[in-house]
């Protein structure tokens, strides 16, 4: 795992509470909001399981700590999106909170429902970008969520030891989290 320059984190009294919200005018119309909310809730929960940080969805986009939106091309932050595939999303380091996804992608929640060869798993990308929002940069561990690339029609949502150790070095461990559960999960997936 690696960090952004200066190792920024959300510098608040523990336990840290962060709100997130969806940009009202920058969403995609083929995924309904209840499904979208469920995907992001699961993605945030994975990180919340391992660190003492709690995430709440807020209705107030402008005051939320983490602001999520889907954008096309040049969307004003100096990091234009490039159409289908290529760059999928980006997020800013703490305590900025901007979380942008490329609206040009074919975002999928269930690959059984979306047949495009270019479909990208929304939950995998969301989980990765939340890592950036929390302060993790890219890792060289291919199996980890924080590895920079993701093939189309691939799901990678489970945090690996590299991801967990990285984020826990920033925020500490969730007292209810046991490393043994992660090791068991990794071993079973390796053997499977």
């Amino acid at each position, binding site marked *: 795992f690696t960090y952004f320059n200066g190792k920024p984190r959300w510098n608040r009294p523990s336990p840290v509470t962060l709100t997130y919200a969806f940009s009202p005018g920058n969403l995609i119309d083929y995924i309904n909001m209840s499904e979208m909310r469920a995907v992001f809730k699961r993605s945030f929960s994975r990180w919340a399981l391992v660190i003492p940080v709690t995430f709440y969805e807020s209705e107030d986009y402008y005051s939320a700590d983490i602001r999520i939106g889907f954008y096309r091309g040049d969307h004003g932050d100096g990091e234009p999106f490039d159409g289908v595939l290529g*760059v999928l999303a980006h997020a800013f380091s703490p305590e900025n909170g901007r979380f942008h996804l490329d609206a040009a992608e074919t975002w999928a929640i269930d690959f059984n429902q979306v047949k*495009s060869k270019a479909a990208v798993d929304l939950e995998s990308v969301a989980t990765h970008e939340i890592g950036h929002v929390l302060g993790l940069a890219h890792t060289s561990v291919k199996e980890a969520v924080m590895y920079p690339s993701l093939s*189309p029609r691939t799901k990678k949502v489970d945090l690996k030891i590299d991801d967990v150790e990285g984020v826990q070095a920033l925020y500490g461990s969730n007292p209810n989290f046991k490393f043994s559960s992660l090791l068991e999960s990794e071993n079973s997936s390796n053997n499977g």
Partner: protein
Amino acid sequence: RIVTDPSTVITVDTRNSTWHDFTRFLDAGMGSQVRGMSELKQYFQRFGYLPIPETNFTDTFDDQLESAVTMYQTKLGLPVTGKLDSDTISTIMSPRCGVSDTNHTLKTTKH
């Protein structure tokens, strides 16, 4: 036998308009000149492997590009060959996160 539902016909081209033709650089080595290699250099600049100030990239595989390839392979957990081998080209062409791998350019402070 599973019959394909006509509504599931795949119509989207999975190639990225920017990076799909990077296969032409496969096995290019030091000193070689391949048309469009400057785009590959822009890719490496974009993700933090070449210095930002450079703007007029040439199409020549030079020392700077070799260094960028080596650094990329190291950072991405690939076999470090310093060459544009198939593993490296394939990884470069994969869809990815827009955050830089080294300079971490998306690090503005909260407004």
